[in-house]
């Protein structure tokens, strides 16, 4: 066992244990750690904005005398900041409208060109591949799994008769997918715990 001699590792261990202490019950150590996290996260939003966005994209061009090249985004950015001044808050809507409109446009482009078209193309598979039973079976699963899942989410028609049967098969696929997601989620959460335990045992306590 080689206990860490770095004060910073001890600080990190303190915050790690403070958060873990919540598992026993809510307590001042946890509340303190949580408050530090919330406050510094808010500060990061400003720091990231300055160092990754405003400085390279607005400040530097302006400092080199090239203000005209960035005049529109500069105005929009300033309008965005009017949100913090109640009297002229409404002006920020212009900038937000720009961001929302762009987001909507990019959303349509992404969904249409980036999802619907290639994904539908991927679903048009041959239902009979001669000499390859495995591929044939998989293609059936793939095509009808997709179609029946969509059927289950089609709410404009009552789920009855043949349509209802298709939807019932759809729900089987959906349950398998949710099961897979659930299994993977457990896997991910456990990995995160492993990461912290490794830190405590390795970097702090020096046991491994």
């Amino acid at each position, binding site marked *: 066992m080689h206990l860490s001699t770095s004060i*910073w590792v001890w600080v990190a261990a303190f915050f790690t244990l403070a958060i873990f202490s919540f598992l026993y019950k809510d307590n001042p150590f946890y509340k*303190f750690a949580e408050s*530090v996290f919330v406050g510094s996260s808010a500060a990061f939003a400003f720091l990231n*904005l300055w160092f990754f966005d405003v400085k390279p*994209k607005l400040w530097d061009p302006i400092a080199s005398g090239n203000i005209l090249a960035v005049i*529109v985004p500069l105005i929009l950015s300033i309008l965005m900041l009017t*949100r913090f001044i109640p009297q002229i808050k409404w002006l920020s*809507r212009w900038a937000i409208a720009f961001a929302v409109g762009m987001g909507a446009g990019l959303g349509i482009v992404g969904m249409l060109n980036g999802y619907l078209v290639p*994904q539908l193309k991927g679903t048009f598979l041959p239902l009979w591949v001669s000499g390859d039973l495995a591929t044939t079976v998989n293609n059936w699963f793939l095509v009808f799994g997709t179609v029946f899942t969509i059927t289950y989410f089609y709410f404009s028609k009552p789920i009855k008769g043949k349509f209802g049967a298709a939807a019932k098969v759809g729900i089987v696929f959906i349950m398998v997918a949710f099961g897979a997601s659930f299994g993977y989620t*457990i896997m991910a959460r456990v990995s995160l715990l492993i990461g912290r335990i490794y830190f405590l045992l390795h970097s702090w306590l020096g046991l491994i």
Partner: protein
Amino acid sequence: MKREIPLLISFIAGTLIVISLFVPHPPFNKMEETLNSWYIIVSGFTFILGIDSLLLYNWDKIRRKSKDWPFALTVILSFVVTLVWGIVSGVRTGHIFSTNSTFRNYFYLYIYVPLQATMFAILSFFIASAAYRAFRARSLNATLLLITASIIMLGRVPLGNAVLIPVLWIAVLLIAWVVLLEIKATTSASTRVGYILMLILMVVIAVPLTKFLYGNLSAATDWIMDIPQMAAKRGIMLGLALGGIAVSLRIILGIERSYMS
């Protein structure tokens, strides 16, 4: 004016982006490039919206000396300390994340990283507790979900196939238990015979299934992920994509205006 101009802005921006997908030629490709470069700058500012209310809320708590005000003070203080430390260290070394910045080497790596990582690590405890408490085979669908999740969890770790055998047989025994309870409860002789046949069938299937999964668990997990799981995810996402397109169109056409409130 207060409403029309924003609607017009979002209409123009959204429409130009969509047109430029179908007509990637001048002038639209140039317009798209310009709009994107503006958007990259402006969208950064959306991350700080709402932070004023967080700070005001905590400031108010301190001012009124309400319960837990010392923690509200901690929020404000850590905001200020992080900001000042970041700015000083960032300006001195050229960037907050410069390899020689004290902000990165001490604050980020030894305070922020453990805080954020541990916040998410405690979720593993909650999910374990939830698995124990809520993950019940209440219906056929729930059972299917449970079985898939278990196969995946075992299929992705070493020794999973060895553990799967007892797990599978315990599951068979549990199902047999439920079926036996049903047999006891029912009065009709034919239903009883049906249940007994079902039990025998289950055991008959379980033997080769165990053998197959022991040798091919990893491949079986891959198959579940690649085929049925994938098909359902695609079906769900296709629905979401259509919905997403509809919402985006409503925004561009000014029908959906909740962002203006």
